[in-house]
């Protein structure tokens, strides 16, 4: 019968190249994996929120489980792709094979049973490990004492409240370091004011969604002081990308200082009285709170200690006088789509207002 196998060049070439490609892919994967896991993590800048450079018990636990799972999957990949590569090379058509069909093997009950049962066993093992970690991580840590904070997700910024300390701030979560001998876990209550967001700081914990009409909880215990970054991880509208998170972990005494500074009422600098009166006469106070003044709006971030924060607009720009001025004047240029309205002030009014805000340490 008609058999129109085209007589083309280089079946051998094809075979060699396929196997080379598989090998190269494996090597690329391996090399990149090593780099990404931060095995050489002395070079990893602290701002890279890698899940493989944890600093907190839940994140350590997840990394531990990940190594186990990655190990199993890596072995499976190497074995199976090795077998595939072997078969592709070994069983390619050779000259002289024309018109002869190889022995037709329809199956083998024993072999098929084996390669069904073995994966099931692997799955059972992985599931047991997984279940242990699911229940283990979500169980509360042994120490009953810890710090409570409430995170309220807004479009497109984070409201942070410390109910026990009487502090309200935005976008920067400050916590004390937790020494394993003397644990100080942080318990976060997560709520949303509008749509679904997700709280994710990879080095501290797995993410947890922030859902309206539902209260979620997540905890971590940061064991090394420093800055840990994250951001919203559930698409929440135009500026989902601009909803960054900074978690600042302080040594205990430094944290106490921070708390005291945040608990203090707003700085009342007489030199900027004009700016303060301007602020209180404008619509600013409908959205923003400055504790100790008539400004008590809840729609936007609390500005009482605005200048204690490193960034503006949920991490989009650094907190500098120029950026602050630009943010008030034309927020859409810095963060297109943000809900902060352009205040349309005259340059003189704007200068006064900014001068006032710059005193709010």
């Amino acid at each position, binding site marked *: 019968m008609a058999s*129109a196998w085209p007589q083309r060049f280089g079946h051998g070439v094809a075979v060699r190249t396929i196997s080379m490609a598989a090998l190269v*892919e494996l090597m690329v994967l391996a090399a990149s994996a090593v*780099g990404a896991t931060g095995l050489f993590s002395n070079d990893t800048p602290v701002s890279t929120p890698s899940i493989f450079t944890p600093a907190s018990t839940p994140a350590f636990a*997840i990394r531990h489980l990940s190594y186990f799972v990655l190990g199993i999957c890596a072995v499976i990949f190497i074995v199976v792709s090795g077998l595939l590569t072997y078969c592709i090379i070994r069983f390619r058509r050779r000259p002289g094979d024309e018109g002869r069909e190889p*022995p*037709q093997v329809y199956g083998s009950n024993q072999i098929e049973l084996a390669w069904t049962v073995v994966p099931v066993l692997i799955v059972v093992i992985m*599931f047991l490990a997984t279940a242990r970690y699911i229940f283990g991580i979500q169980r509360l840590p042994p120490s009953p004492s810890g710090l409570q904070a409430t995170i309220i997700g807004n479009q497109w910024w984070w409201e942070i409240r410390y109910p026990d300390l009487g502090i309200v701030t935005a976008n920067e979560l400050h916590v004390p370091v937790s020494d394993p001998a003397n644990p100080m876990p942080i318990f976060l209550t997560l709520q949303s004011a509008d749509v679904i967001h997700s709280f*994710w700081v990879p080095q501290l914990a797995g993410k947890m969604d922030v859902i309206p009409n539902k209260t979620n909880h997540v905890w971590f215990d940061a064991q090394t002081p420093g800055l840990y970054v994250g951001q919203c991880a559930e698409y929440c509208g135009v500026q989902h990308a601009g909803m960054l998170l900074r978690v600042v972990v302080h040594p205990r005494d430094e944290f106490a200082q921070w708390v005291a500074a945040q608990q203090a009422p707003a700085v009342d600098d007489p030199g900027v009285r004009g700016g303060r009166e301007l602020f209180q006469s404008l619509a600013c106070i409908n959205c923003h709170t400055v504790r100790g003044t008539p400004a008590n709006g809840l729609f936007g971030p609390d500005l009482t200690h605005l200048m204690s924060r490193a960034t503006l607009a949920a991490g989009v720009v650094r907190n500098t006088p120029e950026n602050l001025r630009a943010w008030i004047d034309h927020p859409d240029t810095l963060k297109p789509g943000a809900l902060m309205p352009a205040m349309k002030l005259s340059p003189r009014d704007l200068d006064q207002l900014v001068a006032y805000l710059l005193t709010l340490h």
Partner: protein
Amino acid sequence: MNGISGTLDHPEEGAPGQLPVLARLHEWVVTVDHKRLGIMYIVVGLVFLLVAGLEAALMRWQLAFPESTVLSPQVFNRLFTMHGTTMVFFVGVPIVFGFGNYLVPLMIGTRDLAFPRLNAFGFWLLFFSGLLLYFSYLAGDGLYGVGSAPDVGWFAYAPLTSRAFSPGNSTDYWNLAILISGFGTIATSVNLVATILTMRCPGMALGRMPLYVWMMLVVSGMTLIILPPLSAAQIMLLFDRFLGAHFFDTQAGGSAVLWQHFFWFFGHPEVYVLMVPGFGFASEIIPVFSRKVIFGYALVAASAVAIGVIGMGTWAHHMFVVGMGSTPTALFAASTMLVAVPTGVKIFNWLGTIYGGRLRFETPMLFCLAFLFQFLCAGLTGVMLAVAPFDWQLSDSYFVVAHFHFVLIGGLVFTIFAAIYYWFPKATGRMLSETLGRWHFWLFVIGFNLTFIPLHFAGVLGMPRRIYTYPADRGWEVWNLVATLGVPIQGVALLLFLLNVILALRGGKAAGNDPWDAWTLEWLTTSPPPDYNFETLPEVRSRRPLWDLKHPNDPDWLHE
């Protein structure tokens, strides 16, 4: 006979085979022939593939550098919404069901699908709903000048989709277009199930059908059960947006998570609906190019059914970070890991087919071999994500994006290309060029892997998905840049593919009935088949009727 024929079509009186363009177009528009409708589905799918691919290219251009301003966030958010929606509903679904349309009647030895007019109806619903979705770019302006294409993501979570947070009509375009196309898909699934269960030729018991037909039976059955829940949820969203209902209105006590349950109850099995026909293609092509019968037919068929059944119980692995509680989380982790078993078993059966064979490396086989490596990788990253605590870190990150692109491109698109190169000669009577095929293959393999391997690492380094830009100090730049470099390579590969198709249609080598020396019924008839498909049919006594005809001294039915 020029071109492709259709059943029940009557060319106008006059010069035979030289119909005026308008008359030929009219034939296609009014056709109810499964072969023509199948080709129309596939062509529509490939056109949308180019459009959605362009949307992806724009996104990767924006993401190549940190803090880039090539695209505004509004435009970027519309692009990823349209890209995902188009790829699932207007590329994956039409191509999968288009092949089903074309191949199933030929493979089971019958003349057409059970309900030819319903078939045409289903196609036109899909076609017009695709146009409706894209019309939003032009006319999505609703109130307040807000609008244009939808920007709520392809899974459109509530309450972002409520009137309060999505004013204007862009979300409504998304909603209605998918709703309408869903009805078309359900109609086609009813058609395929009825055809496969009731119209097989004499002797073709269910246990003798080609494995591809088994796969189409499973996915059509699944579609009947899982697509209506999406339609129901979308009707509920319609009620919320237009009638003041509160299905997903958290202000009235409604639940945002309920949308997720409904959506993913559809959404997860849907990706099996997309991928399992790809397994069907591989199960037909790998044996022919290994010159060996499929190893373990029964296990491959049974594993398809297992994937269908178990796969309907895994949906909440998309919701591990919603705060479901430890027990549901553990249960869904278990079911998700379990569904990996029948999937992995298939890879072993294909391996067993290749083992001991005499492999030929024509383009269909090249795509299938790359599929095996890539799908292995995809399946393993899927198993990792099934480990819920791992997913607590990597859900909604670029790791997931990399995983599902490995499944859908590395798995589905590669097997679709294999299928096109394999069955194009049957449908058109012409061979595609092997040289262009190889260029297409190698460029696409390189470009695809260059784009999607780095994205695993971006995810592991903390990069979430659906962000239009990212800060410069997070260590994500190099991975994003490399990923973008793979895009033009894939683009060139696709252009070469199109060139191949065009050149072959104009004057490719004649294919004959059976250019690959294959064994299923479609290779018995002419290329292209006549309107009625088969002039005569052999009595089917085994799974490879043509092997029996070609090897009368050693037929399959002595061994099965």
